[in-house]
């Protein structure tokens, strides 16, 4: 068990391009931190610097309070699960799991090795496969062997490099919950790299969002979702992603391409004196106005728009509204899309409607928008103008308290 601290970490390659630029993250003992971002954002590089497979150009890496910049990987006592498992094909499952124990010469008696491997295998339901070779295992089983190799020794931290990306969707969900439970049971500090935001949101105590080697925001999943610091984080987290509508503000009225929206004076005050602002609205902030309960109506604003089409999914339905942005706004939306790995951000608003809604495409419809939750962004800097830092801190503190509680109860279960 150890805390990991990254202080102003920079990684530059031969051409001087900073793959990771001035990243500082404090990872508490027992915490599960996710590094997430589009490809090329430096998340894997950070992980590989922590484990010692990449040199750190500048900055300081502390593991368990000790400077680890120049330590060899084997001296850091970290365990890593690789994307394509990196199992030793010439060894049986048993020997694969026992590999780290056998390397630590003299530390473990043969009986210890037997016992530790058998325990790890039992925990991962691999007992029946111990004598098989990795080539004969399914993807999920290989994944478990890779995890077995990580948990068999008392590593100070687990590092995961996109461990689930080679699995099919169903297995991924299952392994995700297994990893989550295992981490809670062992309460081992974990750093997990992924580009899948579902994994990021469900697994992490805190999620660090990276873009082009720079840390954008590190916070609990709820804080990221509800109080994103900038356009990038807001657009990257959430699926379907947040809608960005160009708007101009007059008084307390935002006039947008899909209609006028009235917002609270406090929100409006934070965004005054800008010719254009971007309104960030998550799809679920919308609702069919006829289905909104009376007492909620006044929290939002009602407007009329025409949906192009709707998609009914059973539990909810998605509606789509097209709009035609000004060229400079369109350019900005496209560059935002490029940052997030998408080809093009279509000038389209996605709205989530109740499954019972009778709204259909092609006809004007009354929509209600919960204006309490929308965010206003500066289109130039991308900064979130309506960020409520206090609320965000509260959400993250809440998540931390929950984590402590879960670890405590897992310990009690293990003890009792």
């Amino acid at each position, binding site marked *: 068990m150890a805390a990991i601290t990254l202080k102003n970490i920079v990684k530059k390659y031969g051409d001087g391009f900073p793959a990771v630029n001035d990243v500082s993250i404090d990872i508490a003992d027992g915490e599960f931190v996710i590094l997430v971002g589009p490809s090329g954002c430096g998340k894997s590089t950070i992980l590989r610097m922590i484990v010692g497979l990449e040199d750190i150009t500048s900055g300081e890496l502390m593991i368990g309070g000790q400077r680890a910049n120049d330590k060899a990987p084997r001296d850091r006592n970290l365990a890593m699960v690789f994307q*394509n498992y990196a199992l030793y094909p*010439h060894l049986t499952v048993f020997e694969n799991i026992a*590999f780290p124990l056998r390397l630590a010469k003299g530390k473990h008696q043969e009986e210890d090795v037997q016992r530790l491997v058998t325990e790890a295998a039992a925990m991962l339901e691999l007992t029946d496969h111990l004598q098989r070779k990795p080539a004969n295992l399914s993807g999920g089983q290989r994944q478990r062997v890779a995890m077995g*190799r990580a948990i068999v020794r008392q590593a100070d931290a687990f590092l995961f490099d996109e461990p689930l990306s080679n699995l099919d969707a169903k297995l991924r969900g299952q392994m995700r919950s297994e990893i989550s439970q295992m981490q809670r049971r062992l309460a081992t500090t974990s750093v997990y790299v992924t580009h899948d935001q579902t994994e990021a949101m469900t697994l992490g105590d805190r999620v660090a969002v990276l873009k082009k080697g720079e840390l954008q925001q590190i916070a609990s999943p709820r804080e990221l979702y509800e109080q994103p610091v900038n356009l990038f984080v807001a657009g990257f987290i959430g699926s379907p992603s947040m809608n960005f509508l160009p708007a101009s503000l007059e008084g307390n009225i935002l006039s947008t391409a899909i209609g006028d929206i009235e917002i609270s004076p406090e929100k409006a005050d934070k965004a005054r004196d800008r010719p254009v602002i971007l309104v960030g609205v998550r799809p679920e902030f919308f609702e069919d106005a006829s289905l909104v309960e009376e007492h909620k109506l006044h929290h939002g604003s009602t407007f009329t728009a025409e949906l192009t089409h709707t998609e009914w999914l059973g539990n909810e339905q998605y509606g789509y509204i097209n709009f035609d942005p000004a060229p400079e706004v369109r350019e900005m939306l496209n560059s935002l899309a490029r940052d997030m790995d998408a080809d093009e951000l279509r000038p389209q608003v996605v709205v989530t409607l109740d499954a019972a809604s009778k709204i259909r495409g092609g006809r004007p419809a009354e929509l209600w928008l919960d204006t309490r939750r929308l965010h206003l962004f500066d289109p130039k800097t991308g900064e979130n103008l309506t960020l409520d830092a206090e609320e965000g801190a509260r959400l993250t503190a809440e998540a931390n308290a929950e984590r402590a509680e879960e670890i405590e109860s897992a310990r009690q279960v293990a003890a009792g």
Partner: protein
Amino acid sequence: MTSGKQKIIWSGIAVLVLIYALFPVASILSTSFKAPSDLTSGKFLPSSGASTLENYQQILVGDAQGLFLSALRNSIGIALIATVIAVVLATLCAYAIARLDFPGKKIVLTTALAVSIFPVISIVTPLFNLWRNIGLYDTWLGLIIPYLSLTLPISIWTLAAFFRQIPWELEQAAQVDGATTWQAFRKAIVPLAAPGVFTTAIIAFFIAWNDFVYGISLTSTESARTVPAALAFFTGASQFEAPTGAISAAAIIVTIPVVLLVLLFQRQIVSGLTQGAVKG
């Protein structure tokens, strides 16, 4: 799964191929036991009672002994040395090609390919003159060098293809698991690379072992003549007698090490050709 009918068809095909491939070998084997008078009998097997070890005696302890045994020694020595040099050089070269990015990587591979498709017969005459001038004619080295030109390209290609498949991430995984750089290489990479190197060595050995054109053209005496070339110098007991029996016996003897090698190492060869599939 293959049904019963399919199995029968496949077995039938296998038997046909085996007969096609092994009939000449069987024919030579039976000829090697025939007495000179029996050679033209037109029968496959030696006539009853006439089966003889005379041919083997002739080449191992008899008249042809000097010719054959020295040739055997030359063949083994030259083929082994050529194989060892080729495999060592090819391993280094293929490792660089598979793992490093350097300018001219493509050129190395294309050159190797170009060399290997060059017809041997077109080089042998200039080589003959050159070797005579610089004193390499009729020496071991004089054969080892041209053999390298045959064995190196194919070794480089097979090993490069093989090394590319090795998941080098394993080296890093082993380091994270607590291995030193050397331990990581020895425990994670060598066991994976060994079958490939081994397979390549066997292929290279066969190429050198089987060569005839260089063997006959670049040698003149027992000091470097290899077995395939020596066979052409066998003579019968009189000028009216063909040395067919002795040649057959010698052919059988030089086939034995090849067959033994394949039988002994077939598991390594097969796993060398199939291992490397790690990802799922």
